[in-house]
């Protein structure tokens, strides 16, 4: 089940929080290709956010190729949900890694420790994916 948590103190636009969390859920297998996303009204009601915010998030997810919409049926996670060429995907990821590296520096987490943590997180997601029954 998709569970989203919004944080108005994060400084990130609310619709982008929805986008990022759906992407994370798709990447970790919490929602799988072909599975439906909640429709806009109940999700907006549950999160107590403007309906337009959810609609905007879904439009963004669709333009990024993460989900697809079938008229009258709703939104579904796409099977091969990265339409980007590898180089562009790496470029997008690099920004995120840079943020984490900077943060590691401030938190005085060294290179080796950081890399070990990255390995651990890969394992954790793999583990979660294996555990979820198919």
């Amino acid at each position, binding site marked *: 089940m998709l569970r989203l948590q*919004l944080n*108005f*103190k*994060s*400084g990130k*636009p*609310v*619709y982008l929080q929805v986008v990022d969390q759906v992407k994370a859920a798709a990447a970790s297998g919490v929602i799988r290709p072909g599975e439906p996303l909640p429709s806009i*009204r*109940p999700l*907006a*009601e549950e*999160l*107590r*956010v*403007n*309906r*337009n*915010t959810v*609609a905007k998030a879904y439009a963004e997810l669709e333009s990024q190729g993460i989900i697809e919409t079938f008229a009258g049926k709703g939104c579904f996670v796409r099977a091969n949900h990265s339409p980007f060429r590898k180089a562009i995907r790496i470029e997008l990821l690099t920004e995120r890694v840079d943020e984490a590296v900077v943060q590691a520096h*401030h*938190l*005085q987490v060294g290179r080796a420790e950081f890399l070990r943590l990255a390995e651990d997180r890969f394992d954790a997601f793999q583990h979660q994916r294996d555990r979820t029954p198919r």
Partner: protein
Amino acid sequence: MNSETPVVEIERLVRRYGRRDAVDGLNLRVRPGRCYGFFGRNGAGKTTSIKCLLNLLRPTSGAVRVFGMDPAREEVAVKSRLAYVPDNVAFYPWMSVRDTLDYCASFRARWNQETERALLDQFRLDARQKTSHLSKGQRTQLALITAICPEPELLVLDEPTSGLDPIVRREFIRTVIGAYQDGDPGRRTVFVSTHLISEFEGLIDEFTIIDRGRDVLTLDADAARERYQKIYARFASDPGALDLAGAHVLRREGRDIEIFVNGNSADVMNRLKSRSPETLTSESLTLEEIFVATLEPGEAVA
């Protein structure tokens, strides 16, 4: 009306009571499909402004337009497209809930029976009950039903949730999001005046803070949260003099410092980073904190 015509447009509005200016040069515009917050303290001029929109009061000077029309000259055309929930709802006490709904529906070109049934059900309102026997919360719920069933393009809410219990307040907001906004989202505009800002945080796209009858801040909600931030840094030892131009120090004790920034967060963060703090974090202010920081800069988010 093309889709770019603002649903509400207020220009240099002044409304005087005797010698006192309740509204003193207010400007704002609400685009179609937006959920617009109108925040102010008690007595800031919120209700007076709203009454000018609804032609319940005439402006002393300035202009008010709703759907591009003057509400005084085209009152019927304007009112047929909007609905209003005041802070203190009154119904004819001898009427039942059913009579009240029928009475309100008789003035409307459209009335969604299905929405009416669903909301009566959701609020567990007994249609046979006399309105004089309803609680304050139930009167507000009934007012919301009478506002939503005609499917208006503009829903004007004046302090709709003050004095209600938390359950009724949550249900109220859920209904505005669900039953109201679901209809035709591009043409469902909400204009809500409130000082209970945190409840409406997720709902608000854009807002104006009114103080002493004037708009003191108008911003997109996401942009506001990006602009107003609190930064916290801890150094290994007292860093001595820091370049904090453009920031407002909230607290500073030895090697800890907490500051408030308005619009230059990245720049201030970079300057702090160059001093290699042990910890450096930032968080946005909520709309309520932004409200406090705007009206009481001294009290800013301590």
